[in-house]
């Protein structure tokens, strides 16, 4: 055992509550990991302290069964399994005796819950283990007191408390009620990593059986006595707003009980970043069954008008900023033209090392390439939905949301209901990918319930969901490299921007590896709403940068992995500039590992692309093989090396990496949202192309760097680099460089 001192003061941290029926309940939240991370800084996101906090508790029944509450929302990233594993490890319980339950928000025990940014495991690493260890120490103390032996002589193993000298052994359950009466220890010791018996071993998804048998788990599955179904009708285009509806006519339709117009947010309401909604004045149809409401929604006739420019103050991670949405109906063709032209005029300096102007002036050759990507819709398979039952001064809400605590405040602000009278239960989410950070649909459900005075489930159709904004922004980047007569890289220049935000991470690789380096950034406002989409900004800039490095390696006559390693060796041994936001050694580590696992040096595969990237505190390198079948690429094998520190649940982690790779290949090749006169041109999966079974890789090999480093992010890091690997392999297979996503823009759709 290590003797790490834990800074878990009783007052701020541990709450010991005796249950009426005996047993031990420990409430824990984690305030220890709330510091702003370099990652958050690099992303331009100053995380609120609350971001990394959560509550949970564990119950030990007198039969020895342990219930571990899973505090974070589960969006498919496996936290409902892997976070309780951290508690169970230190508790020393047999995992087979653990029941995991989703913790709700806002009960008497919980005060704060939030999740996001691939930070759940990283932020929970110490606090969750400490919560387990604290309970373990109390159980040991209870046994020591009962047996009249020193606590130092007591051990725990797989749910038992053991005193070898006197040959005593009892289950946790037998000591739970005694332990519950003890003082919570101020300091506890955590296990040595070498003694882990749960962390680092694969444990099945705790909801697996429920999923494969179709049990109700998701928000859309919520059913309540007297519950109505509600659907919204939103403007057909960004830049438009609602004026009137033919409500009298629609109210006559079968099963329809209410037709109304709501303001989901009021004009003077304080908004947070996560309150952004494309449309706040909505027509709403309410009725008895989903199909009846769908029919009425189709029949509803609404009048629309052009919306004015909107300027509103929003609390963005603790700072009040003014967010502007210009008036007008935007077009993708104009966006593309703007992105190609604006960088040169409007870019502002983000980082400069050495004398890049001189390097480019003295260059023997300058290579310049531009890259772009379109807006993307998150398209979680479960469309946005939420249940709400709002009565006079109380609100009960249930459904899929990544930011329950923030949205609770929004409901409180909007309806004037005190926070303590609002309950939110999180359901398992049919995908998140960042979309459900923006919980306006929860507020909409609450407002509808209040207006109609009945419990209601708001359901978005796929078309509502796909045309409702909060998209991945459209991005553009131009890279320039200066080479001298001997093919040495003497200067590097990136100008990156987007609508409405820039993807640039100026301090990431290759910053720090090149003497003369210049990074510039620009942004153009839009009334098309955008938000975080799996690995925000990285999800474009990684692919662009890694494609450019591939082309550069070819121009320089170098192996693409060798070029990256040379640059990283320089960044490691003799870094240029300040604030380089990556650890070159770990970058090198994943590249060397993938070089080995993919047999890079000896493979006869011809159409291979390599890519590597760092984000969310983790390092990923990938090699992708493909072949062309006619004009269709077919991905064969993908090799992936990941350094995310200690891997808590290896098989689930592998699954997540595989998913990120498939997801990245799909979005790079096939997906886009485009606009004509403000209208999204894709509204459902007949026109919005997502990757399908027949387009998935034949084989994905995932290897994790063996590490003693505390865990870092995993949900997002495997996603961005694969887009570069796809582009680089496509070049090998077709002889043509692919600069603009989606690479297979006009392929046939398959339903």
């Amino acid at each position: 055992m290590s003797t790490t001192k834990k800074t878990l003061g009783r007052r701020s941290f541990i709450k010991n509550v005796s249950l009426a029926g005996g047993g031990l309940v420990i409430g824990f939240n984690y305030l220890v990991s709330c510091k702003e991370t370099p990652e958050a800084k690099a992303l331009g996101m100053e995380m609120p302290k609350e971001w990394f906090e959560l509550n949970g508790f564990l119950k030990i029944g007198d039969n020895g069964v342990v219930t571990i509450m899973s505090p974070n929302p589960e969006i498919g990233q496996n936290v409902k399994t892997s976070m309780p594993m951290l508690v169970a490890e230190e508790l020393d319980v047999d995992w087979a005796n653990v029941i995991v339950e989703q913790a709700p928000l806002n009960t008497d025990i919980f005060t704060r819950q939030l999740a996001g940014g691939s930070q759940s495991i990283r932020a929970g690493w110490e606090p969750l283990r400490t919560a387990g260890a604290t309970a373990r120490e109390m159980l040991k103390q209870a046994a020591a007191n009962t047996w009249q032996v020193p606590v130092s002589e007591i051990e725990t193993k797989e749910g038992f408390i053991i005193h070898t000298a006197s040959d005593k052994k009892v289950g946790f359950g037998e000591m739970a009620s005694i332990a519950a009466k003890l003082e919570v220890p101020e300091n506890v010791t955590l296990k040595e990593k070498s003694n882990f018996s749960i962390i680092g071993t694969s444990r099945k998804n705790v909801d697996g059986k429920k999923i494969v048998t179709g049990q109700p788990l998701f928000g859309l599955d919520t059913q309540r006595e007297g519950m109505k179904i509600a659907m919204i009708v939103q403007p057909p285009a960004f830049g438009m707003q609602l004026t009137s509806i033919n409500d009298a006519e629609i109210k006559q339709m079968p099963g329809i009980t209410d037709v109304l117009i709501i303001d989901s947010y009021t004009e003077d309401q304080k908004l947070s970043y996560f309150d952004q909604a494309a449309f706040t004045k909505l027509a709403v149809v309410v009725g008895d069954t989903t199909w009846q409401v769908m029919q009425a929604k189709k029949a509803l006739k609404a009048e629309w008008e052009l919306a004015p420019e909107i300027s509103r103050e929003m609390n963005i991670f603790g700072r009040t900023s003014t967010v502007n949405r210009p008036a007008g109906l935007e077009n993708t063709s104009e966006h593309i033209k703007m992105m190609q032209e604006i960088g040169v005029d409007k870019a502002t300096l983000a980082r400069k090392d050495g004398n890049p102007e001189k390097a480019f002036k003295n260059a023997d050759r300058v290579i310049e390439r531009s890259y772009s990507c379109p807006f993307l819709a998150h398209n979680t398979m479960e469309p946005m939905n939420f249940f709400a039952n709002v009565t006079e001064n109380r609100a009960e809400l249930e459904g899929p949301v990544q930011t329950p605590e923030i949205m609770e405040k929004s409901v409180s602000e909007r309806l004037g209901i005190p926070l303590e009278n609002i309950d939110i239960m999180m359901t398992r989410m049919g995908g998140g990918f960042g979309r459900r950070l923006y919980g306006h649909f929860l507020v909409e459900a609450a407002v509808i319930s209040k207006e109609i005075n009945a419990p209601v489930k708001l359901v978005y159709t796929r078309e509502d969901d796909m045309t409702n904004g909060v998209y991945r922004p459209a991005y553009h980047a131009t890279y320039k490299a200066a080479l001298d007569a001997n093919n040495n890289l003497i200067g590097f220049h990136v100008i990156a921007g987007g609508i409405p935000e820039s993807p640039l991470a100026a301090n990431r690789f290759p910053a720090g590896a090149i003497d003369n380096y210049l990074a510039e950034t620009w942004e153009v406002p839009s009334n098309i709403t955008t938000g975080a989409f799996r690995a925000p900004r990285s999800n474009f800039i990684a692919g662009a940068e890694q494609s450019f490095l591939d082309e550069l390696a070819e121009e320089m006559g170098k192996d693409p992995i060798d070029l990256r390693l040379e640059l990283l060796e320089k960044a490691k041994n003799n870094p240029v500039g300040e604030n380089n936001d990556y650890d070159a050694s770990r970058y090198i580590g994943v590249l060397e590992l993938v070089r080995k696992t993919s047999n890079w040096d000896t493979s006869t595969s011809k159409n291979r692309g390599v890519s590597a990237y760092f984000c969310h505190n983790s390092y990923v390198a990938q090699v992708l093989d493909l072949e062309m079948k006619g004009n269709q690429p077919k991905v064969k094998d993908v090799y992936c090396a990941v350094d995310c520190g200690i891997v808590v649940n290896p098989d689930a982690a592998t699954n997540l990496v595989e998913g990120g790779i498939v997801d990245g290949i799909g979005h790079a090749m096939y997906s886009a949202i485009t606009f004509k006169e403000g209208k999204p041109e894709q509204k459902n999966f007949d026109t919005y192309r997502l990757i399908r079974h027949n387009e998935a890789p034949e084989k994905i090999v995932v290897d994790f760097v063996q590490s003693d480093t505390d865990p870092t992010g995993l949900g997002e890091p495997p996603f961005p680099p694969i887009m570069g690997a796809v582009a680089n392999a496509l070049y090998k297979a077709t002889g043509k460089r692919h600069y603009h996503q989606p690479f297979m823009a006009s392929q046939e759709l398959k339903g």
Partner: protein
Amino acid sequence: MATYNLKVNGKKHQVDVEESTPLLWVLRDHLGLVGTKFGCGIAQCGACTVHIDGDAARSCITPVSVAADYAITTIEGISENGDHPVQEAWLEHDVPQCGYCQAGQIMSATALLKKNSSPSDSDIDDAMSGNICRCGTYTRIKKAIKTASNQNLS
């Protein structure tokens, strides 16, 4: 409104709905069988897949009036105790991430294996490409189908 007699998972049900109502919403709203999922409403994602007389069908575009004469099986009905070989293979490979599409995937896979107990990669691609998994679990689904293949599928 009309009355329809449905046979779902071996049980008879009577529902009073409009004839255009898709089977999906009858299952979910009227019979409380919410394992069958809503994803797109236009038969493009496969989340709503059920069996109609043993064949995989998209319940979101199948009107109740058409389905009424046939035996319907949903995810809740493919095994008594959740121990169908396909369900077990799904657990063995720990396939689900978010899990939302998996009922539809399993229904497509069981329909495939009933007809073809030893499908090739391309048979699997053909049978499964109508089912989207946004989390990207396709390679695991393929492995699970292969694990379940050549077993005695009821």
